[in-house]
């Protein structure tokens, strides 16, 4: 079983979803919880048997798929993907647990289980085409969730979401095919295996084009400025569970893919594009934060805050050093937990009031103190307070990029200021002040079901903020391998300079260098 | 020389006839002009030594095709002049003329070729019909058979389409109506049997 754990993880939810068609709709939620629970424990078991000291891929499985064209079913995980997979299974569980939807629950559960398959698949895939398959397939359940259970603009939002990301990923597909073709030219063999591609050293100008092609796919998914406008709509219209999973997992696909594909495959191009992308990231950080500040809908605030945070992740990724990349990977998880929790929290008041406009609220802190507390904790985590999960990631990401550029980091660092501005003002509008609306005076505080979903998130947000080591260590080991690979592949002097060589310096110490 | 005169004469005639076919508003004129044009075209075949083809042309076109069209005209009652609403008649003519000019521009050029050995050389010692038969029943046997199939298809198509069964459309009738109709027709055939 251990050898096939990844396949089990990927296909178990799908199988369960198919069987789920038989389940009566009254039992659908229970069924969903059972399946997601089993899946979650499987993923925890995966963590248990994962060897954190190994930097390479583990639990690899391979089966020929279209061997004539070099496509194989190839899965495996390393420290980078492990935790995002766990996050995915975890959030599916949490999402189903705290599901308050009453319309067509069974459809929702089945859709979510399919979605879970695609999410796990994306992060486990080591073959570009398998990756692409799951990547694209994940759009479909999400489309349905947004489109069927969403708000008044749901159809526009869902179609926009689908088409936008679909367009980007098609360009990425062209890039992948190009990559495979280069591999074919170099070796005489077709292959879509990422690990095989890693060995390929491409000329710098090819790298540029391929990087750009992959970038289109990833950037739209992340979403990076200026490709981000689908996100507010998707979040704004999606039902709570949709937003939660979208923010927590689906967005991470883009940033994960940067780490998995763009950096190790095209180190020279990545270095060449470092600063343009950093500028985009900075625009994302500041601009999205400003837009978030101007929002009237609290969900939109969280949505734009996601964009802002993704900017930091991108920045960390393109720091090209262990600190930055580890930080960005950690921040992916952190942002998943935090933004997922925030969307759940927004869902709580939406369920009660069916509005998300901040002007409709005010003074909730006195009516719903427990709710306000949890929201406050998550908000502070989102703002990046030390000892919460986000801080570790943000700190490392910025720290990493500081190595590359002082001034950029200084500007990007305003993330911690502008982030505080929109978050605090949103919190103030919704929770502080007197209770002005009659409807708000008798709102019920979070109930037990909701707490069931929220408490674990709070615990994680603080636990990993205080003690990130169990997660950070495996990530670090895998990231070191990637950075070393990038260094070894780097051809341009610029890239060689920017990407540290871990093999020689061992423990970096400029103190000793200076002596 | 004779050939040239004949060519130009018949060319003028065919072009004239076909122009009438295309331009006249009288269906009968058009039909007649086309029939004449077809016959004139057979003249080219004779000039070019394709006797068999010429004969076929007259038989098939002026015989079969024209008869069919004549039947059609009577059926459709288009013997009177047909009023055709036209938009941009000039556009059509210009487009046609442009096509002609363009093709002629290319076709004016002499054909340069070194490849003159033909697959089925014309042997002047052999009668055209006989020679055609030789080619038709060897090399072109399969197309010939297929053409037979095609004609069969056309025949079936013509019969089926023009048949009486097309008058009532089962596609548009509700299933109950069909059942009713079939029951009554069944009764009728039985009655006929009794007689």
């Amino acid at each position, binding site marked *: 079983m251990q050898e096939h754990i990844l396949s089990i993880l990927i296909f178990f939810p799908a199988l369960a979803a198919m069987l789920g068609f038989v389940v009566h709709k009254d039992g659908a939620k229970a069924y969903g919880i059972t399946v997601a629970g089993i899946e979650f424990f499987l993923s925890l078991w995966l963590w248990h048997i994962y060897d954190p000291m190994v930097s390479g891929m583990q639990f690899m499985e391979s089966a*020929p*798929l*279209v061997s*004539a*064209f070099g496509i194989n079913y190839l899965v495996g995980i390393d420290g980078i993907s492990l935790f995002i997979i766990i996050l995915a299974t975890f959030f599916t569980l949490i999402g189903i647990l705290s599901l308050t939807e009453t319309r067509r629950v069974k459809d929702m559960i089945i859709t979510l289980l399919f979605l879970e398959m695609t999410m796990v698949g994306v992060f486990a895939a080591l073959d570009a085409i398998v990756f692409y*398959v799951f990547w*694209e*397939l994940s759009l*479909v359940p999400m489309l*349905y969730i947004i489109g*069927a259970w969403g708000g008044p603009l*749901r*159809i526009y939002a869902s*179609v926009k979401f*689908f*088409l936008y990301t*679909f367009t980007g990923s*098609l*360009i990425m*597909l*062209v890039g992948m*095919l*190009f990559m*495979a073709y280069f591999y074919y030219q170099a070796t005489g063999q077709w292959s879509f295996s990422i690990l095989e591609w890693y060995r390929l050293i491409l000329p710098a100008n090819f790298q540029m084009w391929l990087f750009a092609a992959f970038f289109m796919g990833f950037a739209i998914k992340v979403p990076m400025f200026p490709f981000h406008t689908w996100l507010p709509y998707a979040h704004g219209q999606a039902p709570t569970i949709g937003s939660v999973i979208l923010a927590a997992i689906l967005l991470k696909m883009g940033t994960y893919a940067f780490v998995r594909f763009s950096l190790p495959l095209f180190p020279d191009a990545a270095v060449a594009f470092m600063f343009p992308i950093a500028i985009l990231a900075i625009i994302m950080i500041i601009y999205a934060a400003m837009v978030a500040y101007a929002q009237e809908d609290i969900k939109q605030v969280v949505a734009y805050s996601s964009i802002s945070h993704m900017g930091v992740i991108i920045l960390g990724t393109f720091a090209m050093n262990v600190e930055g990349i580890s930080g960005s990977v950690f921040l992916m998880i952190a942002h998943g937990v935090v933004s997922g929790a925030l969307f759940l929290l927004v869902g709580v008041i939406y369920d009660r009031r069916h509005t998300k406009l901040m002007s409709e609220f005010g003074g909730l802190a006195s009516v719903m103190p427990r709710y306000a507390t949890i929201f406050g904790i998550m908000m502070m985590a989102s703002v990046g307070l030390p000892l919460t999960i986000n801080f570790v990631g943000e700190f490392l990401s910025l720290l990493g990029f500081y190595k590359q550029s002082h001034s950029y980091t200084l500007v990007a660092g305003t993330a911690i200021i502008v982030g505080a501005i929109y978050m605090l003002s949103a919190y103030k509008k919704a929770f502080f002040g007197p209770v002005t609306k009659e409807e708000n005076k008798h709102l019920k505080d979070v109930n037990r079901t909701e707490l069931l979903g929220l408490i674990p998130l709070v615990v994680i947000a603080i636990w990993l903020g205080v003690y990130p080591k169990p997660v950070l260590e495996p990530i670090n080991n895998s990231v070191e391998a990637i950075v070393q690979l990038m260094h070894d592949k780097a051809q341009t002097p610029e890239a060689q300079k920017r990407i540290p060589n871990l093999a020689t310096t061992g423990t970096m110490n400029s103190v000793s260098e200076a002596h | 020389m004779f050939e040239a005169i004949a060519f130009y004469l018949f060319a003028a005639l065919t072009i004239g006839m076909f122009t009438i076919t295309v331009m006249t508003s009288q269906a009968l004129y058009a039909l007649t002009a086309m029939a004449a044009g077809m016959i004139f075209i057979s003249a080219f075949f004779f000039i070019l030594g394709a006797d068999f083809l010429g004969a076929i042309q007259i038989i098939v076109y002026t015989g079969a095709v024209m008869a069919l069209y004549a039947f059609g005209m009577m059926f459709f009652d288009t013997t009177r002049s047909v009023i055709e609403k036209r938009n941009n008649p000039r556009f059509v003519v210009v487009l046609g003329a442009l096509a002609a000019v363009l093709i002629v*521009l*290319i076709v004016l050029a002499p*054909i*340069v*070729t070194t*490849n003159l050995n*033909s*697959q089925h050389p014309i042997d002047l010692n*052999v009668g055209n019909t006989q*020679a055609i038969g*030789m080619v038709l029943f*060897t*090399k*072109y*046997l*399969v*197309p010939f058979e*297929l*053409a037979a*199939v*095609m004609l069969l*298809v*056309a025949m*079936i*198509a013509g019969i*089926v*389409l023009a048949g009486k*069964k097309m008058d009532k*459309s*089962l*596609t*548009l*009738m*509700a*299933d109950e109506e*069909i059942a009713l109709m079939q029951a009554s027709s069944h009764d009728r055939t039985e009655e006929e049997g009794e007689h």
Partner: protein
Amino acid sequence: MLEPITVSLASLNVTTMAPMLIAIVGALTILSIDLFKDGLHKSLYVMVALLFLLLDLGAVVDFGTIFLRNGTVLGMFNMMLIDGLAILSQIIIVVASMLFIPLALTSKRFHEYNYPEYFALFLFMIAGFQFMVATDNLIMIFIGLETASLALYTLIALHNRSKSFEAAVKYFTMGALAAGFFAFGSMVLYAITGSVEINQIALSLAKDEYANIGYVLLGITFLLAAFGFKLSMVPFHTWTPDVYEGSSAALAGYMSIVPKVAGFVVAMRLFEFLVHSGVVWLQVILYIIVVVTMTASNIWALVQSDVKRMLAYSSISHAGFVMAAILIGSTQSNTGLFLYWALFSFTNLGAFTMLWVNRQKNLIAGQSSDHPYEKFSGMIRTMPMAAVVMALFMLSLAGVPPFALFWGKMYMIGAAVSSGYTVLALIMALNSAIAAYYYLKLIVFMFMKEPMAAYGENYLLNASLSLKTIIGIAAVATIFAVIAVNPLLKVITLFVYNSGY
């Protein structure tokens, strides 16, 4: 005097005609059965046709094995040419026909299935297409094409309602014009090469080093126009949506697959050698045609209000997409063409069959066509399985992995990339994105809107066990295409490569 010609029967390879003859015999058998006893139920004819098609397929597959052993087989005075392309396309033609013919077994009664002749014509048509692909003689191609087309016009008209007549007449008239183009184009090529066999023409042109470039282009122009019509390339495509709308969904689906694959094979034979000989003009023109066809039809499909019309435009777009293979002209692209079309067959079969089972006889008030989008509104509530299956086909058509068409698209784009057509690859990819919109539109209607009561009783009324079986086959094929892709690729590559394409 002519010497008598002696031909040994063995050298004729009469068996090369076996597949087509089986189909023709099948048609004649059906006609004979009708002669002896009329008014038999359509299921008999369906099964007889199916049996003959099965035999036909057996014969084709047998040729396949022969081909793999001995290579290309010529027969009947080199009139028949059984190479890899012929075999592959015949397999697609016959298999697709086998899958479409059971669609006659609807629970409602439609006019055409009352005619035994319908099934006879169907088989004749298949024979026509088979002849068309199994030769490189332009005359033969022409007759095969016409046989098939004339049968097809009739089949359309037999649906017997004014729209189908209109469709048939339009198709027929444009077909007649296209036939004229084909004839003229062949004439021009014949004028400069003295031959009507494509490989002879190729040799002759090469020998003359394309001295008569004007004539060559003239001939190609006309042939392009003719095949542009057959393959519904813009601007020769105008018949497609109307004909699809006018004919029954079953036949429309059929038309989107079989005639086109025959057309593609001929186009491959005709144009690829020219592309390879460096006729830049053709490359440019094909490039333009491919791009315009893909894009324009996609754009028009966006604004359709009827699903069948939308699928018509979508099939134009798919044809444009596949036409790129001929432009690219590498073994990989030609392989991709067949792979794509094989996968497309199943998906389109499914999509059109789904329309077919939803066919109502009389339009309700306010309905202007058979399958408006509104009809599918909220289908997930009323018929969840049907909605899911239909969505599946739409996603496959849109190229969402891992469904069937994705693999075709991927391979085709891969082929474009491998031959240096980067921009083309990008355009192909982006077009898939545009296309996704209109496929999504149906999904949106099915999954995200409320059901419309007026259509409530008309769903699935036309379904029968056999139709559901066909849908099942199509769905399974669409979902599990990934398993089939590898063996398909291997076989197709083998056939295509060994045919010299």
